[in-house]
């Protein structure tokens, strides 16, 4: 068995972490679950973060809002609960289309120990008869880093899933609809039809779970969700994540094999899309091969992305930073990486920037706060958030994913100003 970089030492750092908090997940989750609404119970900072991260994209009235805590809410907690009830009633009057309401905890609500679990239970009792379920989770920065917000949200959905012991494959993690549809088509070509997704596109379409459920993680940041599903009888299928051709094939194969699909049927279904995707990667490989890449920690997607860039595009990995290394889910990924990969977990942003400057990578993958300053120092960057907001999983997106890394380099070569 290849050990890859499973035994490589990991640099663990503590210091300033230049990462988003879990509230940011609302920016994609509110588009994903179309009849859900996310009410952050927090401060003006939370509201400001959400609209800044969303780029103030007001296409329609958003399906998220903030219940802004004020001085008097901090004074007496009993009042805060009454106030919250009032805000929720007002919101539901305004938006009768809401079927599922998430009360989302924030740093200030956690620090004053406002019990949103209890509030959700109480409000669920009040509004259930009108067909509105009320749940809660924490997206606070003191508890969660960026994509961990999605983990917390999905984990909150798990207790609501109906029990069903029948065999099924459950794909866990928010994916773009186009990706979901492609993956479904491949699975159904293998003859695998008892397939479900979490999160659902609509609250009422929540999948069931039970001892027959095999879960296939589509995202690498779902530790709590997986644990909650396991406690309901689901069995985790270890696999590479479906990024790049190698990852997608391994992921589909692991899922289908766990459901008893024969190796031949799996091969037949993946052969054509796999070949097509390999061909599509050629242009980017010519551009990226031999180039050196540095990942700053952001979304926990760093390790599978680094594996893709190295194994399929020939890039050299200088440092792969991740906010949090969840070994249990990352084992197949680490085994597929080169043995000498330099992994770092957590962050001390100034020290890490010193390492970036010393290494002068060809491409640095980093957050929005760091990208332009590094560009101004003459470095080429890729903003990490785009890797979360773009459909990148599966065969047909493999070349798009490669293109996200190739474009900054191509642009740099083009410009003569």
């Amino acid at each position, binding site marked *: 068995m290849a050990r890859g970089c499973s035994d490589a030492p990991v640099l663990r750092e503590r*210091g*300033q*972490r*230049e*990462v*988003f*908090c*879990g*509230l*940011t997940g609302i920016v994609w989750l509110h588009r994903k679950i179309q009849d859900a609404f996310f009410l952050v119970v927090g*401060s*003006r*900072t939370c*509201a*400001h*973060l959400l*609209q*800044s*991260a969303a*780029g*103030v994209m*007001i296409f329609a*009235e*958003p399906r998220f*809002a*903030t*219940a*802004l*805590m*004020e*001085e008097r*809410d*901090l004074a007496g907690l009993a009042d*805060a609960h009454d*106030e*919250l009830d*009032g*805000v929720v009633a*007002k*919101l539901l009057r305004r938006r009768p289309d809401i079927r599922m309401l998430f009360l989302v905890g924030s*740093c*200030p609500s*956690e*620090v*004053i120990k406002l019990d949103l679990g209890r509030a959700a239970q109480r409000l669920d009792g009040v509004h259930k008869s009108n067909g509105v379920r009320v749940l809660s989770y924490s997206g*606070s*920065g*003191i*508890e969660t*880093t960026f994509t961990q917000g999605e983990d917390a949200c999905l984990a909150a959905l798990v207790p609501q899933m109906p029990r069903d012991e029948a065999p099924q494959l459950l794909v866990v993690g928010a994916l773009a609809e186009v990706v979901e549809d492609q993956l479904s088509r491949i699975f159904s070509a293998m003859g695998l039809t008892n397939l479900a997704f979490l999160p659902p596109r609509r609250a009422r379409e929540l999948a069931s779970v039970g001892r027959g459920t095999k879960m296939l993680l589509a995202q690498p940041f779902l530790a709590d969700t997986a644990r909650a599903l396991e406690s309901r009888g689901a069995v985790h299928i270890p696999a590479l994540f479906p990024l790049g051709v190698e990852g997608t094939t391994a992921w589909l194969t692991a899922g289908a094999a766990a459901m008893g699909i024969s190796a031949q049927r799996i091969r037949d279904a993946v052969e054509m899309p796999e070949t097509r995707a390999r061909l599509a990667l050629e242009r980017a490989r010519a551009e990226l091969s031999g180039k050196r890449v540095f990942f700053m920690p952001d979304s926990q997607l760093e390790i599978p992305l680094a594996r893709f860039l190295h194994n399929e595009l020939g890039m050299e990995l200088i440092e792969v930073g991740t906010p949090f290394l969840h070994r249990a889910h990352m084992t197949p990924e680490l085994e597929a990486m080169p043995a000498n990969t330099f992994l770092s977990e957590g962050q001390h942003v*100034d020290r890490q920037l010193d390492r970036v400057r010393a290494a002068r990578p060809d491409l640095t993958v980093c*957050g*929005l*706060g*760091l*990208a*332009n*300053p590094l*560009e*101004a120092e003459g470095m080429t960057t890729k903003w990490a958030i785009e890797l979360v907001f773009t459909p990148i999983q599966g065969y047909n997106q493999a070349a798009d994913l490669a293109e996200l890394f190739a474009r900054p380099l191509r642009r740099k070569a083009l410009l003569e100003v």
Partner: protein
Amino acid sequence: MQLSFWTYEGPPHVGAMRVATGMTGLHYVLHAPQGDTYADLLFTMIERDNKRPPVTYTTFQARDLGADTADLFKEAARDAYERFRPEALLVGASCTAELLQDDPGGLAKAINLPIPVVGVELPAYQKKENWGAAETFYQLVRAFARPATTPPERASCNILGPTALGFRHRDDVREIVGLLEGMGVRVNVVAPLGAAPSDLMRLGDAHFNVVLYPEIGGVAASFLKRTLKQDATKTVPIGVGATREFIAEVAALAGLEASVATEACRLPWYSRSVDSTYLTGKRVFIFGDATHAVAAARVATKELGFAVVGLGTYSREQARDVRDAAALYGLEALITDDYLEVEAAIEAAACELVLGTQMERNIAKRLGLPCAVISAPVHVQDFPARYSPQMGFEGANVIFDTWVHPLMMGLEEHLLAMFREDREFNDTAKPSHLGGGKLPEKPAGDVAVLDAPLLQVWTAEGEAELKKIPFFVRGKARRNTEKFAAQRGIANITVETLYDAKAHFAR
């Protein structure tokens, strides 16, 4: 607890960041949880800053709460000093750290750094961004400003108020510095933008202060008036008239002749030129910070001949100024930070142009109305590559262009009115050079707002005639006709009702 969908202003510590990022030689150590670093992207992405804001965050997490967050802060402050070697340190807390009551000011003093430390307390659950910027700037001025050793010459001033991430602050400063220097006034210090703490120590070397952005520089200017006896300007030079008044005010303070060699401004002539006749009485809705909203209303009415049909602000602190200004136009000011309320008001006003913030730009886009941005909060496109001030004479030129261009031009508007049924040249057709065809249905826009639940029906002919009215006045025509019909108890609105109403309201 208040339900908020979008917010016009950030929290007060973002105001402090705007001050610190605008300055040089100052570093801000912010006690804040993981995630609050999002604020960096406001500067690096929206303003396209080429360096990180000079801010160190403690980014504490749950595990730190059990231990000692105060130690974490002290360590962060020490590290920040060692790494960045600033002239002075600004310290404070964001909303979450405020609840921990660690007292960053006291902690930073306790570690005995060899540089001045200024602590700012910004109550995050009561105050907002502009207040935070004003308070931070005031605390810095209080800490550093000294009286002059020799009395400064009369024709010397400081410029107070511009910050990082301000709407056109960078260009306004260049324009106003040029204007002042052209008058023979020495500009001593511009602050916060571009100033170091050591520059703030020289504030006393000027005779008076020019307050460009009262929301941010006002408190510091009052302090300097009390302590250093520096007078401050009251006029904000936005628009031709206000710029002339500003020049007169500065001249009086500086003891100079109130004249400038050349008034390099095209707005007065452009506005008088015949092509601008069609601007007369255009209905505009104005919303922004108090200073920019009040100034925009004056420019709109006196310098472009528009009719102001709505005026409001999200700055409650300056609500009175906006109420007074609104009264001049026979309006009641809209004072709110709820953008949904602003949207409803814009829709009800049946305006032809919206002058607002990034929020109103989005509202206007949705309602299909032309819009120009006049105030923060703004987005990346409001930091243009070209020189584009709002203040002074060049600012007036910029205003003329940016407010007039979204509107239909003179003869274009007439043609549209004359040949309303032209197959290609109407408001529901896509431009023919783009292949023609129908535009997608616009939501709302034309929807009537009725006060009384009177059952009114437009006849088919009436409706068809209404459609011949250009879309940008159709909402008004529909509203007036329905009001007219309601007053007279007319249930079926015909072509004749439409023209009766038109004649009635023309009187």
